[in-house]
Every structure is written in structure tokens, then in C-alpha cells.
């Protein structure tokens, strides 16, 4: 349904999207995963016709977005990560306005917007001014807006960002409903556990490049051939990092504020000897555990491999490629689904 071929978006010398190719089939829920600045939003904006690609091709149902932006836009519903609402409109007027913008006949607008308002569970807010709605309600209203013209493809950029846990659950329920409707959805999120539950396929993007793509189970399987060991130590982690780097069965190492993740490709005896060795070396280990194989660990593993330079990570240097997230507390919150993640702080 959506085919992207060799997409490039360049700002001066910086490539925000670098030769990215992907395909989304009909009725797929495709999760777009990547760190801040990886190129997710840029790619989504290009698909939505809001940015012009430097080169490459984006086609929806065989129609090229560059050649026929109007035709493609009428088939896409787009919900940006940050959006504004017209504060001086009521919920029903807001929906009516966008129905008008999409050229929907006046006689059909009310019925359609009522259905969508009900879908996003705002039926008791129709006569309320939009500016009085909570963040979660505004997100849901924006989702209803993006559905007003019955699009084939729905592009949702961080639809659950900044929402409290209750609102996130509601958003998830709505997305399940959309899946039942047969909508094709491209969704980006930092909450990987939620993505793995609802997506049929995912694509992992790093520094503008698609580094892995396919069904969620396949990605986890392929990416997790290395086990990831999470080690927590008291005091400075330098000794632990140095020790781990000397172990032949340890691959790349990444250091966060309160733990160290190490790719491990040995057997159980080797694993036990690493722990034993750390204790003999007077490293104060307080936790030593293998991470469960899931989308989060797969993502971390793939990104680490793609970044490649374990020296820099291991030394705690903020290497350009990984510094955006590996040493970023905000990033940890995103991955864990923290609702209090401050996007402005991260500059995304």
C-alpha cells in the first residue's frame, strides 16, 4: 500500500533521512521505532506531504506523493506529535471545520463527526470549548480529526506522548478499534512494550537509516541472538566497564546512569565466571541479570550493533551516533513508557 524507496531528506550537510526504504501492506499496523532525532517524524512528514524529500520516492497505492500531493493527502490521516487546537472552537465545531476542509458535504458532517467523537469517547464534550479539554482528550480529538475523511492510511506520530497511564490505555483501545476497521496505521512511539502488543510489523530507524524491519516476532528473534546482561554496581562503573571489556564473550557495552548493559555471546559457565570475576576484582555488584528478550532489548541490541563503536560507549564517551539516547535519562524514560518525559528538554 505504502512504498518508500531510497528516501533522502537532507538539511545542509545533515541527512535526517538516509536512503530509507520500507513497505507497509494494507491493514498493517506498522510501528516506527527510533530514538529522538532518528528521522521518524521527518519520514512521517514526508509521507503526509508536509515536507519535500531531497530524493527518493513515496507512493501510496501507486500514486506518487510528489506528483499528486492532493490525491495522496486525501487518503492519509495525519496526527502530528505536537499540534495545536483552535481554542475558540467547541469540539463539534472543531470537527465540523475539518470536515469542511476535507470537502465533506454539510449534510453528512454532523453524523460523521458524531460517530468519530463517540469513537474517541468524547460524546459528552461536544459543546465544550477545545481549550478546556485535558491533554489526553485533545489527543483523542486530534485522532478523530485525522479520521474525518475516512483515510486509508493513518499516520500517528507519538500518539501517546505525554499522556497519563489511563489515557494511554484509552488510546490503545482506540487503536485496536481502528485495526478492526481495517485501517492501515503507521505509528511511532517510544513505548516499545505497547508497540509490540499492537503492531503487526515494525521498522527500526537509526540516524535516518532503516536498520531492521519486519514482523515483531522476527525482529525480536533476529536481534536477540546475543543475550543482554544488565549489571548494576555501586560507585563508579569504570572498573566494571574495564573488566567487561576484557571478557572475550562480551560484545558491545552501553552505560546508562545507573546500570551497564553488555551484549553477551557465551555459555552459562562463561556467564557465571564473569560474575565471579567481577566479585573477585572487588567490583561492588548489586545486580546481575539477563534481560528478557522483548522488543526493547531487541531495539537496544540492534541500535548498539548499528552504532558499532563499543569502545566509545564503554568508555562513557558521548559518541555522536549514540549519545542522543544511550546516555540520556529522558531516553530511558521514553523506553520504559514514562509519561513524564520532557520532549522540549530533549529537543525533539
Amino acid at each position, binding site marked *: 500500500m505504502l512504498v518508500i524507496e531510497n528516501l533522502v531528506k537532507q538539511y545542509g550537510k545533515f541527512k535526517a533521512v538516509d536512503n530509507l526504504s520500507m513497505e507497509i501492506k494494507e491493514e498493517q499496523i506498522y510501528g516506527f521505532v527510533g530514538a529522538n532525532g532518528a528521522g521518524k517524524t521527518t519520514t512521517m*512528514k514526508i509521507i503526509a506531504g508536509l515536507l519535500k524529500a531531497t530524493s527518493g520516492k513515496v507512493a501510496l497505492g501507486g500514486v506518487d506523493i510528489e*506528483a499528486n500531493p492532493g490525491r495522496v493527502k486525501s487518503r492519509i490521516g495525519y496526527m502530528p506529535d505536537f499540534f495545536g487546537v483552535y481554542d475558540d472552537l467547541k469540539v463539534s465545531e472543531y470537527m465540523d471545520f475539518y470536515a469542511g476542509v476535507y*470537502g465533506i458535504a454539510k449534510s453528512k458532517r454532523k453524523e460523521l463527526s458524531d460517530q468519530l467523537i463517540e469513537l474517541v469517547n468524547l460524546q459528552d464534550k461536544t459543546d465544550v470549548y477545545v481549550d478546556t479539554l485535558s491533554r489526553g482528550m485533545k489527543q483523542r480529538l486530534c485522532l478523530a480529526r485525522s479520521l474525518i475523511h475516512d483515510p486509508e492510511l493513518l499516520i500517528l506520530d507519538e500518539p501517546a506522548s505525554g499522556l497519563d497511564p489511563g489515557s494511554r490505555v484509552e488510546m490503545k483501545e482506540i487503536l485496536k478499534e481502528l485495526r478492526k476497521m481495517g485501517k492501515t496505521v503507521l505509528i511511532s512511539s517510544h513505548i516499545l512494550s505497547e508497540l509490540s502488543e499492537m503492531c503487526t510489523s515494525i521498522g527500526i530507524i537509526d540516524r535516518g537509516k532503516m536498520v531492521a524491519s519486519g514482523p515483531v516476532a522476527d525482529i525480536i528473534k533476529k536481534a536477540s541472538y546475543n543475550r543482554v546482561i544488565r549489571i548494576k554496581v555501586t560507585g563508579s562503573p569504570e572498573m566494571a566497564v574495564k573488566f567487561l571489556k576484557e571478557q572475550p564473550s562480551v560484545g558491545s557495552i552501553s552505560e546508562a546512569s545507573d546500570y551497564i548493559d553488555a551484549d553477551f555471546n557465551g555459555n552459562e559457565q562463561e556467564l557465571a565466571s564473569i560474575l565471579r570475576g567481577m566479585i573477585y576484582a572487588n567490583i561492588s555488584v548489586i545486580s546481575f541479570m539477563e534481560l528478557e528478550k522483548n522488543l526493547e532489548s531487541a531495539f537496544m541490541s540492534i541500535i548498539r550493533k548499528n552504532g558499532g563503536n563499543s569502545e566509545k560507549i564503554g568508555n562513557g564517551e558521548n559518541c555522536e551516533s549514540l549519545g542522543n539516547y544511550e546516555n540520556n535519562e529522558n531516553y530511558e524514560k521514553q523506553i520504559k513508557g514514562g509519561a513524564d518525559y520532557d520532549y522540549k528538554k530533549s529537543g525533539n
Partner: protein
Amino acid sequence: MIIRNPVIEKELKTKMRGWKSPALITGYLAFLVLVIYLYFLASGQLEKYSMQYFNPRVALNSYYFLASFQFGVLLLIVPALTGGAICGERERQTLDLLLCTNFPAISIITGKLIVSIAHILLLLIASLPVLGSVFLFGGIGVSDILLLSLFYIVTAFMVGSLGIFYSTIFKKTITSIIVTYITLLVLLFGTLIIMFVWGSVNRIQNFPRIEHLYAFLFSNPIFGFVSIMEGLNGGYGISTIFGIGYGSTQLANTWVKPWMINAAFDILVTIVLVLISTRRIKPVKGISKLKNKEGKKQFVFYSSRTKG
């Protein structure tokens, strides 16, 4: 494009809601009426037992004053209203929500332009009966007031399109408004200054002559406005305050009046700036001229699409 433009519908609905707009119109009209009353009072025309003869010049002068005042209000307010038209959408983060639809960019621009100047036009149109009070004394016809109103509208569109154009260029509303005012000042006074500097450098006698006025002031809204006012007055005039009295007496005998040239310039500038602004906000230009009709064809109610 204009009649069924949802941008216009939405803005008019929200702007006219509440007490502010009716209060603004009432206050503005009350002010104009007060000005006329004071003008007549000061001229001794309202004293019941006065033996002073009736002077129609007073009515005409009050008309000039009101017309000039309204023209000044228009030039002062329109940049402030239009300078933030697109910037405001960008700042509110609502522009992308419009641009990701198949709604034509030209409808966004024309909608914003019309809505931004609709308020000032409403004030001007509402004040027509006040201007029409001079009918009681003669000297001004309905066609004169209509011509003036048309000139107001054309000028408002030109100034408005300048504001919209800059608001597509600059990210901040305040920058856009300031640059619009600067451009307007250049048109209003810059052209006059250039003309007189040119005249004094070249030491031309009987300066400025009609050809100089046309050459330097064709784009100056005051030039067009003054020529409309002078048309009522057989060449006598308020234009002498700009030192262009000699040329203006020549103008009284020419068929192509400055306001025609000025209005043509305004219309041309409006069209060009609207087209450039439209192109500027279009993120992806497109190469096909195919008109999309799919929105209506694809429309299916959601209940019928639910699978499970």
C-alpha cells in the same frame, strides 16, 4: 473558493461570537458621530438661533476628515491583523493540520486574507451611514461614497496581502507585522521622499508635474486617495499638504486618474502576493493538475466499515 471556504466560516463565526465585535463597531460609530457633531458645533452650524449663514464647505470638510481618518485607520490596522495570519497558525501549531489535508493552499491564503481584513471592512461599511450624513448638505453623491469604499477595499487587500506575504516568510508574528509596516511606510512616504529628492537633484522647474507624480507615486495609496478626494473638489485641495498641488491641478484635466493607476497597482500586487504566498506555504508543490474528487467518493460512514 471564497464563498464556501471553511477557514472564512470558522473565523467569522468565532470572531463575531461574544460581545467584543458588536462593542467595537458601536464604539467606532459613536466616535465618528461624535467627531461630526463636534465639527459642526465648532463651526457654529448647530446653533438653533444663529443668524450665521449655512456653509456647505463645513459638511464637505467633515467628510474629508472622516474619509481621511478611516483611511488612516485602515492603513494602521490591516498590517497588524494580517501580519500574523500564517505565523499565528504556525505558532499555534495548526498550520500543519491544514497543510496535510487536500484543502487548496490558495483557499487558506485567500481565506486568511479575507478574514483578516473583514473586520476593518465591516467597520468601514458600518460607517457608511455616518459618511452619508453629508448628503443632508449636498456636495457628495452616493457614487462618490461607493467609489471611496471600493478604493478602501482595494487598498485593504493590497496591504493585507503584504501582511500575509510576510507572514509566510517570517516565523514570528511580530517580525512579520513590523516588516509589513516598514514596507507600507516606504510606499506612503518613501516614494514621496524619493520623488522630491530626485526633483531637487535634477533642479526641475514647476516640480512635481503630472508625469512625475505618475512615475513616482503610482504605488502610493495616499496618492490614489487624494485624487479621489480632489475629484470631489475640482482640484482644490488637501493634496497641497503633500506639496503636489501643481501636479494635482493638472490631474483634474486628465482622464486617467491617479486612483485608477493606484487601484490597478494594488490589484496587481494583491494577485501576485497571494500567488507567491500560496506557493510558499505549499510544502510539496506537485506536478499534476488533476483535481482531486476522491474525498467525496471515498466517504463511507464508519459504522459500515467496522469489521468486528
